[in-house]
């Protein structure tokens, strides 16, 4: 359906219209549910639907009360702190270990690459309920259940595949002659990595780190199995909000999270424009 072709039959034009209408409907299906949440989070009433006042655009029907109650709530603040702390620590571990492993996997000399790759990305494939159950027994036996440490390690393990895949893909486009040139100019392997290779693969590394952080930030099942009250994260609080005491507070948090994703994608988009041939590039 190339728009440059001059001769469209009537049937082709009709088909094109239908195609566009169908796609529009699918985009509505993808996006609309999230958009509905945003105005409802400003509902002055404790309901999950539009009040008559809201539909009439009456200013009194809108309020920031749910945002206020989230911000003032100790539990939500603890949840945000936990989410950020666990997410950042897990992403740091995942990124360091993942970049090292990707450097090894990208080497033509790597022995048993297929097997090692399979093992390293297994946390991404395994259904989360099985992983979480296994970790529950493991950290309970170690006396580490209901600690931040167990969640950091669990989320780091779940996040590494994203780093490995993203950085390996970046390294596939990396010209090894550059490190050889650095070596011939007297740089040691570490200096060559830090001064030459790392800056060039940085977009891929940052993208991988962001993905690992986002994976942790959205993870709820291991938190359900490993975390106690002190380890509640934002998704865990939302889970409780949906399951137990449903309140429009979670709509305010949902709106905040949608905004967070827009910022995150903005950063990735910026990296892509800067990074040229990175894997996140088109």
């Amino acid at each position, binding site marked *: 359906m190339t728009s440059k072709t001059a001769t469209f039959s009537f049937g082709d034009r009709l088909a094109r219209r239908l195609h566009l209408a169908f796609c529009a409907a699918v985009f509505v299906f993808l996006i609309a549910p999230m958009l509905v949440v945003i105005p409802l989070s400003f509902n002055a009433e404790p309901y999950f639907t539009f009040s008559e006042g809201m539909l009439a655009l009456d200013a009194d029907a809108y309020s920031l009360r749910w945002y206020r109650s989230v911000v003032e709530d100790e539990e939500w603040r603890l949840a945000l702190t936990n989410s950020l702390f666990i997410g950042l620590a897990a992403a740091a571990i995942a990124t360091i270990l993942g970049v090292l492993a990707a450097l090894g996997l990208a080497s033509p000399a790597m022995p048993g690459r297929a097997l090692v790759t399979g093992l390293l990305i297994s946390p991404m494939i395994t259904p989360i*309920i099985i992983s979480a159950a296994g970790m529950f027994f493991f950290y309970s036996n170690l006396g580490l259940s209901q600690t931040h440490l167990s969640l950091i390690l669990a989320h780091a393990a779940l996040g590494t595949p994203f780093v490995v895949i993203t950085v390996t893909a970046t390294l596939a486009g990396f010209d090894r002659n550059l490190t050889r040139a650095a070596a011939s100019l007297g740089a040691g392997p570490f200096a060559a990595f830090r001064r030459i290779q790392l800056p060039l693969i940085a977009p891929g590394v940052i993208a991988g780190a962001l993905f690992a952080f986002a994976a942790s930030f959205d993870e709820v099942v291991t938190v359900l199995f490993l975390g106690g009250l002190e380890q509640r994260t934002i998704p865990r609080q939302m889970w409780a909000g*949906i399951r137990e005491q449903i309140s429009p507070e979670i709509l305010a948090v949902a709106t905040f999270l949608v905004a967070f994703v827009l910022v995150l994608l903005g950063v990735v988009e910026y990296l892509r424009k800067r990074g040229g041939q990175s894997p996140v590039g088109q």
Partner: protein
Amino acid sequence: MALSLAAARVRAAALTLPLVAFIGVTFLAPLGLMLARSVHEPLVADSLPDTLAMLNNWDGVALPSEDVFEVLGRELLSLHQQRSLGGVATRVNRLESGMRSAVVRTARQLRDADPGSWREAMIAAAPIWNEPKAWRAIQRAGERYTLRHFLHALDLERDTAGNVVAQPPDQRIYLSLLGRTLMVSVVITVICLILGYPVAYLIANSPPSRSNLLLLLVLVPFWTSLLVRTTSWIVLLQNQGVINDLLVAVGLTTEEGRIPMIYNMTGTLVAMTQILLPFMVLPLYAVMRTIAPSQMRAAAALGASFPQAFIRVYWPQTLPGIAAGSLLVFILSIGYYITPALVGGRTGQLISNLIAYHMQQSLNWGLAAALGAILLVCVVLLFLLFNRLVGVERMRFT
């Protein structure tokens, strides 16, 4: 030269070693230990060693002799004093209902009086000791290594003669649940393909500025929290939700006739389809944008109509994308937990939810592990297929 190659191999392997060790300890070991619970259940064997040793010589038909009663009675009594009787009682009860209360009551009453005859005292406490099936339950619960959880997960059990037979009809739930999970995954995969293919085509064949914008419409939901997206479906679909309100307002249904669209299978299907759709669109788009538009123009110039050109030229080249997207959506579907748990109600639960139930509520960890192992085998086989057809290095997240 050979030496430097060896050095390069060692260096590459050494770079991967920290992560291999990390994943080995924090992921693969926990996974393996958990799956081992499906065949290894030592608690009863460790708790009742003397009774089980004596039952080894039992014919399984007549009642055991007085000294077997005495040994079991003494072992139950000492477990009761150590406050560790509960786990044993629960496990024996899974093989013969009524055994939990029999075991607990027996231990409690034996504590009160030193019996003249252990047999009479125990049968007085719980008449079930008069029946061989009680002793068979003890014997089988005492198997240190067992396949019964796998049999149970496949709706099978062993009869009194040790043959593998089907469970009674009212207890056959796991195979049908596995079948339902596979069926739901197929349906979701097909719907995602039908919805995703035209969208990926549109994005791949739009001018760059518009295609970037359209891609963003796929990426924003892709990266938005699962909990957020599930919440938004609850807001839309619940009985007092936005869609039902709208239907009532425009008169398509009445206040009493509000349609139950959530907390059932419909809720699971709708929410999972929306959540998994980007996993279909992105691989399809990745393949489609490598297909030059000039191919379709060439086909048209050679006299093909659009449907002909599409079927003979375009569609075959998108098959790798279809394979990638479909396998990805299918793999994610069969292991899905969160969304069915939150919006599935009673009828929209999948196999993962039952594993969670046995992990957290019934505490039948052996059965949870067996179900998990079966699910994991399905996923790994599908993933090997994915890796062969597509290659993991071509996965993308943005």
